[in-house]
């Protein structure tokens, strides 16, 4: 069998991502799960790299692995108040299991369906030339208003979350 370096890299990275993603679900200690999540993010970033989307990969590392996961770990550590070994156990509650199963079936079905019915092009050429310039043009040129609106929405969401958590002052 003849595999190129790129294929090998993809197989390794995909396997790594899947394994760590499984770890997120299966570890009993939720802190371990969170750290597995970081690795999963890194694996995804690696896949971006193999697809010559370096910028996206780095943003994936910076935002997801570097920032979001720290946030997740922080949140876990702040609210965790019990034996860490028992924080990520399967729910003993039948309705929860039912709901989980249902959601899983739905998700897998949607994924399989979308993959099945999409006609993928045989081969996608890597973005020629300056991928950064293209992205910049899209984000800060054509779609600058949606981008800023999204940023504003996120800001509002953050402020709202803080108010929800701390409670507004009643005067």
């Amino acid at each position: 069998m003849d595999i190129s370096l790129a294929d090998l890299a993809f197989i390794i990275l995909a396997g790594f991502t899947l394994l760590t993603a499984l770890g997120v679900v299966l570890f009993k200690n939720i802190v371990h799960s969170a750290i597995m999540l970081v690795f999963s993010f890194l694996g995804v970033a690696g896949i971006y790299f193999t697809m010559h989307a370096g910028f996206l990969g780095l943003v994936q590392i910076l935002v997801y692995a570097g920032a979001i996961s720290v946030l997740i770990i922080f949140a876990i550590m702040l609210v965790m108040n019990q034996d860490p070994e028992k924080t990520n156990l399967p729910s003993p509650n039948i309705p929860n299991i039912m709901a989980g199963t249902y959601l899983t079936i739905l998700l897998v079905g949607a994924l399989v369906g979308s993959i099945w019915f999409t006609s993928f092009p045989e081969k996608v050429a890597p973005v020629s030339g300056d991928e950064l310039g293209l992205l910049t043009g899209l984000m800060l040129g054509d779609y600058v208003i949606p981008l800023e609106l999204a940023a504003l929405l996120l800001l509002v969401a953050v402020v709202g979350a803080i108010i929800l958590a701390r409670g507004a002052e009643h005067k």
Partner: protein
Amino acid sequence: MEHWFTDIAQALVNWLMGLGLSAGWADFVLLIVQWLCIVMIVTINVIILIWLERKVSGFIQLRLGPNRLGPYGAFQTIADAIKLLTKEDIIPSRTDKWIFMTAPLFFIVVSVMLYAVIPMGDGMQVVDFNVGLLYFISIGSLSTICLLMAGWGSNNKWSMLGAMRAVAQMISYEIPLAISLLGVVMIAGSLRLSDIVVAQGNIWFVLLQPIAFITYFIAATAELNRGPFDMPEAEQELTAGAYTEYTGMRWALFFLAEYTNLVAVSALCATMFFGGWQGPGLPSWLWIIIKTYLIMLVFMWMKWTFPRIRMDHLMSFSWKILLPVSLANLVLTGFGLEFFKWMGWW
């Protein structure tokens, strides 16, 4: 002298291809060899640096520093390394073992990975990434998690406090760090580090971007967890912060990683603001070494002179002073560039 290392690399690739490997695989092997070289460079640098730090602190503190082992105590670090290697590896029983054990490994891996994009001479770069600067910053942000892992895994309040401080500090200082570097990027017009070096052919960016340099330098000190920003370690307050429970080689790995980071950040500083490997007479790789070491001496000078800043001052300094200043610098640079273009000077 200039092309020693690039010639060796080229010869290696030619030899491998002569053996019948495809170009891709030959590059892959070369990559591995380059990584090994980086690990070697890091190790040698750290050995020199620890010795240098002791000598510098000795000089500042009117002491001699190490002077028993070898000429001017040069082998002191090696003796220390042997001592640390042979020390008992104590893992406290109530720790989260896997996290505790792997945190130092990840920390050192992350800090070594930083070197991939640093141009260590003309054409001497492991990967000449088109978004090299972003790579540096995003990989650098990963070390936060390693410190958090160390603090959490130790199951010790001091460690946890140290880790919390580390996270708060590193996340807040990453922002001014990145924004201050953006000024340079705007002038150079590229995130590729080799382009940035070439753009400084006529004038170093430290002269064009003095404010960015100062904010970068301060934020970098905080990112490195070095004095006066050594909050996460803070031996006078947190005993040793996140490293409190670590012994022997695991502790040494943290130590190693901190110095590795120091070299990387100093090298980046030289690349971004001091013309990188460019310089008259000497070969390019020597120039970057000289510049990096000079910058590191300033870091050491700061560490051994200043007291430690308080945590709340540290945070307010980042958000209230450093961030606005670096943002203002960014705006100023934008206006300046447009003005230059309008005047036709650019």
